């Protein structure tokens, strides 16, 4: 299991690196254009990596015929959700940190100065993304065309998180204080609470036999 997680992580990091290439090709060498697009690009990278990574949350259970074991697991199924969510948040954060390092390196942007503020935005946004992603991964694990359905379900629901994180990141990178984006942070926190609560409360229903 550990081995497989590492495999996913490696592939995701490589994928993130490839994304950087694509961004560079799409935008060209213009520095100002890049700086203006940076918050959106960062989150585009996180979300695309998230769609790939989160979608694989239950891939082990499915491939090894362990789905029934999940269904039969005694006690509160929400514990499974919380566990999977924790792993996903961790995985996403690792990928995001690496992507940030790559951005700093390849695009010569200063992400160190606004790092503390950025870390808060990152943590809040990642929790929201992973909370819904984990729930929907369980939902689509046993469905036809899951790799298609998963992003189609997740992206519209994530609109508030995406808008909030991109706007907050934009402000933070411009050196504005966190108080200037307090309403976005509150929205993210509210979204996190709603999504995690919904996940914990409804996960049981997805794992009935």
């Amino acid at each position, binding site marked *: 299991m550990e081995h497989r997680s590492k495999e996913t992580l490696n592939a995701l990091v490589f994928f993130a690196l490839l994304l950087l290439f694509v961004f560079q090709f799409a935008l060209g060498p213009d520095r100002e254009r890049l700086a203006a697009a940076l918050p959106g690009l960062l989150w585009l990278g996180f979300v695309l990596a998230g769609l790939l990574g989160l979608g694989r949350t239950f891939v082990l259970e499915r491939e090894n015929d362990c789905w029934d074991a999940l269904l039969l697991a005694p006690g509160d199924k929400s514990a499974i959700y919380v566990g999977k969510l924790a792993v996903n948040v961790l995985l996403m954060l690792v990928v995001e940190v690496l992507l940030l390092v790559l951005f700093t390196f390849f695009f010569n942007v200063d992400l160190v100065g606004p790092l503390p503020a950025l870390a808060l935005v990152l943590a809040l946004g990642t929790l929201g993304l992973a909370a*819904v992603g984990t*729930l929907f991964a369980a*939902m*689509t694990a*046993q*469905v*036809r*065309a899951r790799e298609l*359905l998963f992003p*189609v*379900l997740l*992206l*519209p*629901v994530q*609109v*508030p998180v995406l*808008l*909030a994180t991109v*706007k907050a990141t934009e402000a933070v990178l411009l050196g504005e204080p966190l108080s200037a984006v307090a*309403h*976005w942070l509150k*929205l993210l926190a*509210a*979204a996190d609470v*709603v*999504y995690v609560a*919904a996940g914990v409360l*409804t996960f049981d*229903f*997805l794992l*009935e036999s």
Partner: protein
Amino acid sequence: MTRALGWLAVVGLVAGLVMGFAVAPREVTQGNVQRIMYVHVPSVWVAYVAFAVVFVASIVYLARRAEGADHVAHASAELGVLFTGLTIATGSIWGKPTWGAWWTWDARLTSVAVLFVMYLGYLLLRGMIDEPERAARYAAVLGVVAALNIPLVHFSVYWWRTLHQPPSLMKPGGSSMPRVIVWALLVNFAAFALVYLYFLARRVRLLRLEAEAAA
């Protein structure tokens, strides 16, 4: 009963047309184009009602496992998507002569568009699961999550488009519309609500018959 509801809806629609075309005055600046509002605004109201029904029916299904609740949620989601689509289409027809564009990324357009794709996803999920019981269960979970997401979408899109601090109310500014326009809107809303109820009843019945035939 359903048939009576259907005829009532027809009467309501005729009354709505009369109100919209004959009773309501021609708007001074926009001209007759403004009359599309009597279709546009009631559509979006009914769409919100439809999604609220999906939410409630989904919770009822998860709590009681009543197949009927699932059928209501399914039918209401379809109608919600239909009325959201109607809202977007009529809005575009109005927007082209008024704003000069079919579409702008205005806050309210965007949030309605997000609703549209969110519930299209809901219908897609339903269509992709073959076992009816599991489709009902999964769709109910999604129906709850999607509904909880509506306020978040609303506020995020609103703040995204208006750079200022948010207003304390959902909508700024009180109503300054002439009484007759308000009445025309309300009559059309009632008519559209009747159409919704009629379609809902028919669609729920069809879903029940399909389920019985499959069983």
